[in-house]
């Protein structure tokens, strides 16, 4: 598919801020699954610098804004040609060894409940292939954690998500990462975009899923929220140990206050004239 992304992040400050600095990872991954045809990150009155590609293959840029400012807007626009590799991340250059992703963070720390869940998911699967086990874990998360927005926040750990049984894609992904790591499978958090033909899923256009490392295949995506592996409807941005580590934007604001955040993401099929029309 050819997917066109329009992603606007707008910060408004009740009291003007003195300064803002962000570390941004807003550029699609370089891999065979996706080719960038055009991509642009626009910001007004910002200084950009300190850019590099890290060991996980992600492109990072540093952005600073001098105040006083009462708002700051980031517009990400571009078109990406995607291919369906059944979730397998192909030709992605990275140097971090998979075993580094067996380490839990505060958000993915195991609990007794998570241990039991991992055990249940893999019951009777002693002879199964690693890929089948990964699928079983992802299915278990889909069955156990219901997709319900507003029940969790950005810092809800996997153990609490499981107790509540509800959450958004971030929470389902954290639970899946923990289950995988408990089963000896390296797992990480991936952020990106998801195209959906149906309007009701628009809130999840800015999306997150997990990648599990499977011998012989490498990193394979699992989207427990949608009970599938990422295909050509997905655009991959970057990865990390958890949502915090993988956050596409991490920032610090000095002075001012009363921040409100407005995020709008539109993903459309670039080759669908009807969709293009509707955008006008």
């Amino acid at each position, binding site marked *: 598919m050819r997917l066109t992304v329009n992603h606007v992040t707008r910060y408004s400050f009740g009291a003007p801020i003195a*300064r803002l*600095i*962000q*570390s941004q990872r807003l550029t699609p991954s370089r891999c065979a699954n996706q080719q960038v045809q055009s991509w642009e990150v626009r910001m007004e009155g910002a*200084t*950009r*610098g*300190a*850019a*590099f590609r*890290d*060991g*996980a293959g992600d492109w*990072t*840029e*540093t952005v*600073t804004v001098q105040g006083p400012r009462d708002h700051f807007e980031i517009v990400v626009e571009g078109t990406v040609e995607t291919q369906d590799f059944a979730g397998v991340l192909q030709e992605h250059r990275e*140097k*971090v*060894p998979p*075993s*580094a992703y*067996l*380490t839990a963070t505060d958000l993915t720390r195991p609990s007794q409940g998570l241990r039991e869940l991992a055990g249940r998911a893999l019951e009777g699967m002693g002879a199964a292939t690693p890929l089948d086990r990964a699928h079983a874990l992802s299915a278990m998360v889909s069955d156990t954690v219901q997709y319900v927005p507003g029940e969790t926040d950005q810092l809800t750990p996997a153990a609490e998500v499981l107790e509540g049984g509800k959450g958004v894609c971030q929470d389902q992904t954290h639970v899946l990462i923990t289950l995988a790591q408990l089963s000896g499978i390296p797992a990480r958090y991936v952020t990106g975009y998801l195209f959906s033909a149906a309007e009701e899923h628009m809130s999840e256009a800015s999306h997150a899923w997990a990648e599990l490392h499977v011998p012989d295949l490498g990193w394979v995506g699992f989207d427990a929220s949608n009970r599938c592996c990422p295909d050509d409807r997905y655009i991959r941005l970057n990865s990390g*140990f958890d949502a*915090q580590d993988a956050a596409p934007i*991490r*920032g*610090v604001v000095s002075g001012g206050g009363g921040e409100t955040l407005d995020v709008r993401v539109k993903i459309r099929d670039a080759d669908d004239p009807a969709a293009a029309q509707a955008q006008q």
Partner: protein
Amino acid sequence: MAETFNEMVDQGHVREAYRNLEKWQNDMPADLRAMKQNEAEALFRRVGITFAVYGEGGDPERLIPFDMFPRVFTASEWRKLDRGIRQRAAALNAFLADVYDQREIVRAGRVPEHLITHNEAFEKAVVGFRPPRNVWSHIVGIDLVRTGPDQFYVLEDNCRTPSGVSYMLQNREIMMRMFPNLFVENRIAPVDNYADTLRKTLASVAPQKCDRDPTVVILTPGQFNSAYYEHSFLADLMGVELVEGQDLFVEGDFCWMRTTEGPKKVDVIYRRIDDAFIDPLCFRPDSMLGVPGLMNVYRSGGVTICSAPGAGVADDKAIYTFVPEMIRFYLGEAPILENVPTWQCAKADECKYVLENLSELVVKEVHGSGGYGMLVGPKADKATIEAFRAKIEERPWNYIAQPTLALSACPTFVEEGVAPRHVDLRPYCLVGEKIELVPGGLTRVALKEGSLVVNSSQGGGVKDTWVLAE
């Protein structure tokens, strides 16, 4: 336990290193000694050096006792140490460069991968990054103990920010003030070039983007840190700025220091704060001590951070066992300094030996620190040993064992005169364009009779450490 090696008197003879000090000791009347000891204490108080050595705990404001009796090495004794320390610092740096690049030592089957990637000090954020000159640990503190005339063992490597060097410098300064004649009668290699060498070492690892005399700063967590004295002391001696996180900011490709004349670009940061606090945009988001965006400038080659974030992966207890292997693997040399022999209970045959010899060994948890969860066989009663045996049998991989070392003893001033007390040594090796080592280090001494614990929190003191010139 073997007999203690006395560094001054061996089998009734005064050893070469201490020949001149014997007369000095004999000629000093008790009242003069008491007076000098008071004078030394007053001098230490005046300079304000009151802090605990890295990781020791205890009251940071306490004055660490200074013992006036110097610890002495001859030139030939030092030569071996010097070569061994430099070799070790080189190997540790080669290991760190490899850990964050191709991991050849893992591929070669010499070090298990999980010891690296599951290590708490391993930083994913710097994988694939190559710091200037590929140096990762710029100040390597190597803790050594001695058990005989030629037997030295490395207890521990410190690759992050080893502290205590200000004691090395102040101990010398105060000895020279109090006993100037000693420094006329003995040819003692100077240590006062340490700060200058440190500054040159730091300047030599400035980023390639730096096209002028590099600006070096020391980044401190602030005056409430137990080693703040050392931070300001070193900044003073080097003639560089001592800064806190809030004095620096990131803009564009560089890191800048706020000054009265406007922003000044910073090229090299000797940081005395832990990895987790360096940059809230990369590590702990709640850190107020660091500089937001600093890791991005570092990784894009705009500033050098010393020591490199992630350097701690080389000074872990489990990795320590492999340092001799690193020396052979990276340098193709035989290790000059030995590790303390270590049995890994994870290995069945070694575990068997440990369980059969518990009353003679020191058993430690692999990831433990500060002496917790430790068994000191020779000092433990039967019940304690048996309880520990059960723990080892249950989780063998969690334990290592070492022989109880008979640390050497040096003459030390005590209430009743002069008596031998156990000592260790921490030299500070500097790694940049060159590997540099000032002749000496910090000698810690266990002031309690028979004690092997040199930590200042448990009654340890410090001594001036001499290396005699050729």
